[in-house]
């Protein structure tokens, strides 16, 4: 039995895991042999509407975004998608 990891990044609209998904990335260590992401409900939507849905589909949360105060002078600047949640799924391959 060989185990491989799948990693899912979800970026949320806010700091809570159950907020709306605004971005995603999927890295598949099984090279397609493991389960894939569900089809979005509408074109352009994410595979899950929020992080809780990902948990319910078997994803395990590895890391959530740390909350940091903006640096002085940077309070009103946007940069990267701020609320990043990283999940994993370990898949047994025969």
């Amino acid at each position: 039995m060989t185990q491989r990891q799948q990693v899912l990044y979800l970026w949320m609209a806010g700091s809570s895991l159950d907020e709306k998904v605004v971005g995603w990335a999927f890295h598949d260590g099984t090279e397609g042999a493991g389960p894939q992401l569900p089809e979005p409900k509408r074109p352009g939507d994410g595979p899950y509407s929020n992080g809780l849905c990902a948990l319910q589909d078997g994803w395990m949360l590895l890391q959530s975004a740390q909350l940091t105060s903006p640096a002085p002078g940077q309070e009103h600047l946007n940069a990267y998608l701020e609320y990043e949640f990283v999940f994993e799924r370990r898949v047994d391959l025969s």
Partner: protein
Amino acid sequence: MATTAAGDHRLSTRQMAEFVANGFLRFDAIVPADINERAIDEIGQLNAERLLPDGMKPPHSRTPLDDCYPLPSVVGEYLRLPQIRGIIHSLVGADPVFDHDWVHHIPGGGSYVQPLHVDAATDSTDPTFDVQLFWYPSAVARGEGGTRFVPGSHLTRVRSSGLHRYQHIVGEQQVACDAGSVFVFHHGLWHAGQPNPGDNDRWLYKIRLNPTEPQVRLWDTTDFTDVQSPPTDHIFARMQPGSVAEIFRTWHPWMGITDYRNDQIQRALLWRYLTGDDDFDVDYYLTRLEGRADLVEGRA
């Protein structure tokens, strides 16, 4: 005043506000078919020869636009179209200089994919900006190599490689267009080339231009007083329908509420630069902070 080159094709105030809110403008089939049809040979030659010891070369950086690709040149014809010069004039003035250009050719079946990125290095914090014109001389079918881009991402402060991990963002678009369409990007807009699983080659000629004058009210301001909103225009108080502030309330789907409000502040700051109106605001965010001390001291 409009230059002869731009004719009366400059942008309206509403279009400029849309550029500020979205980071891009789209002009479908704005380049005549005759120029599009002849363009492929020339930009193909530029693509093939620009890095060779001899052959067709782009202009040097800082070449005045008027001196780039002198006629006879199809690229030169494109860059001298009054409707193209009107767009350029509105955003970076009558006499911008050439930064660089590039031909992006994705043959039918091409699988190369760029990660999401911004061009060049992280930019300065001043509000001046360059524009990048993306000209697609042949039609781009949906999903067949059109540039992927993220509306509203242009006013963020990021490192280019930091965007690579974003495989998908809600609200992103992929160019699909008729031949001769031009997309004009603020230099900060996140974008990426995409694979072309179709049968047709995808051609793109991209040029970046730098302004050589303050980018203040360079467009056709005939509609300015009709759409400009006062600093008191506030979604939680009173609003003026059809105003610039209304355009600046565009909420891109990838934005959470803090992103949205921060971006409204950045749009307002950019609009202050573009209009010379240092009091401009939308939804009171700047005015509240800038005016609090005066209110407390009874000076307001």
